[in-house]
C-alpha cells in the first residue's frame, strides 16, 4: 500500500523567510503527487500536482512553487513567506489519475 511521509508536522516562520516542505512516497512507483492547502472551514485547495519527475502543474497563482527532483519526492517552496501563506499543507499521492489519493499527515505552517 502507499504511504505518504511529510515533515515537519509543525512549522513557525517569520514573514519574508524561505520555506521548504518535503513529501516522500513509499509503496508505489511513478505516482501522481499533489500539494493542497486546507484552511479552517474551507475545502482542500489544490496548489500543485505532478505526474512525473520535473513535471509540475500549478492550479493557483501564488507565492509558492513546487519541484519534483525524484520520482517519490515532492517539495513545496517559497522564497519569501507572506502572512497569507499560513495554513495546513497536505501532500497526497495516487497510483494514477483514476485511483484515490492518499494523504500525509500534513504540516501546520504559522507565519509570524
Amino acid at each position, binding site marked *: 500500500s502507499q504511504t*505518504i511521509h*511529510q515533515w515537519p508536522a509543525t512549522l513557525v516562520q517569520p514573514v519574508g523567510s524561505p520555506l521548504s516542505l518535503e513529501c516522500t512516497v513509499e509503496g508505489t512507483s511513478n505516482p501522481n503527487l*499533489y500539494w493542497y492547502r486546507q484552511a479552517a*472551514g*474551507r*475545502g*482542500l485547495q*489544490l496548489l500543485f500536482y505532478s505526474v512525473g519527475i520535473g513535471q509540475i*502543474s500549478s492550479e493557483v497563482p501564488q507565492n509558492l512553487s513546487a519541484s519534483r527532483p525524484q520520482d517519490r519526492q515532492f517539495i513545496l517552496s517559497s522564497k519569501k513567506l507572506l502572512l497569507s501563506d499560513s495554513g495546513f499543507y*497536505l501532500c*497526497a499521492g495516487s497510483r494514477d*489519475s*483514476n485511483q*484515490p*489519493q*492518499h*494523504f*500525509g*499527515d*500534513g504540516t*501546520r505552517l504559522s507565519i509570524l
Partner: protein
Amino acid sequence: EDQVTQSPEALRLQEGESSSLNCSYTVSGLRGLFWYRQDPGKGPEFLFTLYSAGEEKEKERLKATLTKKESFLHITAPKPEDSATYLCAVQAISTSGTYKYIFGTGTRLKVLA
C-alpha cells in the same frame, strides 16, 4: 461552475443513533466520487470510491451510496470513535481534458457516549 456541497456542516449524534451525511455535486464529466475521514491535525484517510449511480460500498458501520446528483454516507449505530470530519471529493474532467479534484468543506461529526 463545478461545485461540491456537503451537509450538514456539523452533526451531533448519540451513540447508536444512525444518520446520513450528504454530498451533492454539480460537475461535468464525473469520473468518481471519494469519501475521506479526517481526524483533527491529521491528513484525510481514504474510505470509499464510487464510480457510477447506484453503486454502494460498505465498511464496518459506514455505507456510501451514489446517485447522479449526490452521495450519502450512512452511519449505522455510530460509536464515539466515529467522531471526525468526513470529506467528500469529486473527480471530474476539465474542459482542457485534464482531471480535476474538487473537495467539499466536510461534515464535522461528533458522537456522544
